[in-house]
């Protein structure tokens, strides 16, 4: 089985996000980069499925040259191959991203992938649509928001949480599945794997995307005002218990 995990390089932010002066991006000086926890699960799942069923796991991203760092994280997690659709620093719209990914996936492998995993949404833009658009372009079925996945005899059995339980999908492979954190426990890469990943070659491919009029265009970013009005301090330690009870009873009316 050939499994693909698609990921996105994003800044690793703290409690406060600072923007560049032109408000076009996050000021990343002093910050590192990472990927969404969803995507870490996608890589883990790709590797785990290959460990179970044989085959190979491939990691793909569309991003700047530095995104090879995230691809190497994937390789260190025991993915077999990695490909970078290399862009400049500019962020691509979800439609263009999907075009480029679909085109890139086509070019990557003649035989095609059996399972294409995405994070449910990216950590930063959260457009919730790239995987669906890729699936549509490739003509593959797509299920989203999956927290439980099994592959049996060419069928993916995927479960999504709903109120009070889970709904189960069974789709034929090849298929696109977007996954959520909780699907699995992503492994910590071993030191040897990390070292080897550093020495592994990463294929860099020029992305192609259709240009279309209109679409979704970022104008600028804004760091929202946070409500810094201090909390009312009810007290220290258990001396505050009567106050808590009063609030629960009077203000929130849950007692």
């Amino acid at each position, binding site marked *: 089985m050939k499994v693909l995990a698609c990921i996105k390089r994003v800044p690793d*932010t*703290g409690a406060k996000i600072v923007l560049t002066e032109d408000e076009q991006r996050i000021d990343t000086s002093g910050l590192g980069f990472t990927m969404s926890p969803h995507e870490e699960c996608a890589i883990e799942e790709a590797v785990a499925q290959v460990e179970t069923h044989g085959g190979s796991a491939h990691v793909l991203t569309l991003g700047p040259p530095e995104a090879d760092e995230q691809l190497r994280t994937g390789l260190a997690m025991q993915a077999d191959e990695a490909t970078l659709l290399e862009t400049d620093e500019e962020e691509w719209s979800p439609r263009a991203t999907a075009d480029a990914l679909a085109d890139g996936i086509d070019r990557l492998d003649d035989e095609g992938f059996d399972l294409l995993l995405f994070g449910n949404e990216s950590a930063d833009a*959260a457009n919730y*649509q790239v995987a669906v658009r890729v699936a549509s372009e490739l003509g593959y079925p797509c299920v*989203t928001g999956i927290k439980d996945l099994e592959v049996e005899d060419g069928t993916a059995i995927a479960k999504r949480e709903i109120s009070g339980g889970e*709904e189960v999908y069974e789709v034929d492979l090849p298929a696109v599945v977007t996954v959520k954190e909780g699907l699995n426990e992503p492994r910590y890469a071993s030191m040897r794997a990390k070292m080897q990943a550093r020495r592994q070659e990463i294929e860099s491919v020029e992305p192609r995307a259709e240009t279309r009029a209109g679409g*979704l265009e*970022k104008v600028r970013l804004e760091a929202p005002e946070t409500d810094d009005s201090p909390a009312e301090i009810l007290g220290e330690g*258990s001396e505050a218990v009567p106050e808590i009870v009063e609030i629960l009873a009077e203000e929130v009316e849950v*007692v």
Partner: protein
Amino acid sequence: MILALVEHDKGTPEELSLEALAMARELATAEGDSLEAVAFGDEADALGDELGEYGVEAVHCVAHHHLERYAPDAWAESVVQLASEREAKTITAPGTDRGREVLARVGTSLDAPMATNCLAVDIADDGAYELRRNRWGGSLIEHARLDGEHKLLTAAEHEFPIEPAASPTEPSVSTFEPDVDDDLFAVQVDRVETGDEEGIPLGEARVVVGGGRGVGSAEDYDQLEELAELLGGTVGASRAAVNEGWRPHDDQVGQTGAKISPDIYIACGISGAVQHMVGCKGADTLLAINTDSEAAIVQKADWAVIGDLHEVVPELNEVLRDAA
């Protein structure tokens, strides 16, 4: 015409659908356009009364012999056909798994752009939308332009207040029968497995008692469980606590976990990392119990108790037990 996808439970619209409807109504008012709803499933025709309160002029109930179970591609195709028939140029959906994936599929059929997590939408002179949407789970706001023949929008969770329209309508309720190929049922809910988990789902609880790294161990969550039970609520956890293995991932509140909207969120031993706070933004009130008076969570709380949760929570439980 603006077409709004509405999810419902046997004729009762879901909260997030009403929020998205609020967004759609704002747009309809601004554009001087009409607002119509599309719904799937049993008893959709019962939506008429309630949706009228929110200014919907027509409710289209999609009927298809294969649609007894959810099938995103078939839903999307139905919406596309209805939009075409009704000449809807703007389609909205709630910020739910289904809402987003159906609308994304509509986007692929119409080759239309889609903006998710919207906070506010204005109409520019050229007819494009100037909108604000959440990024980073709401830690950042993106100002964006959405332009195209069709425009697709989903609403951010708990951002649009659900308020009845100034002038209620009496919507027409009609059935729409789409022409859907069998291959659009390749992805369809096969079955539903009900969880063996007891208790109230996090997203629906009126009271959530959250525990973070400060709880210290899986065992120490017993105190929080008891408090949640006494208050008729449920327990949540920070990502740190889940990563420690103290709680299952299902309990995680935050950007990559559950988004909660209780009446009160009682955060115990949680520092208040931004990825956590975006998951509990929907809470009406926030009470923090923390040893560090400078912790981010204390800054953001309505009320705070400075102290060790291992001391405060058992004491609180005792008082509540005695009162019960």
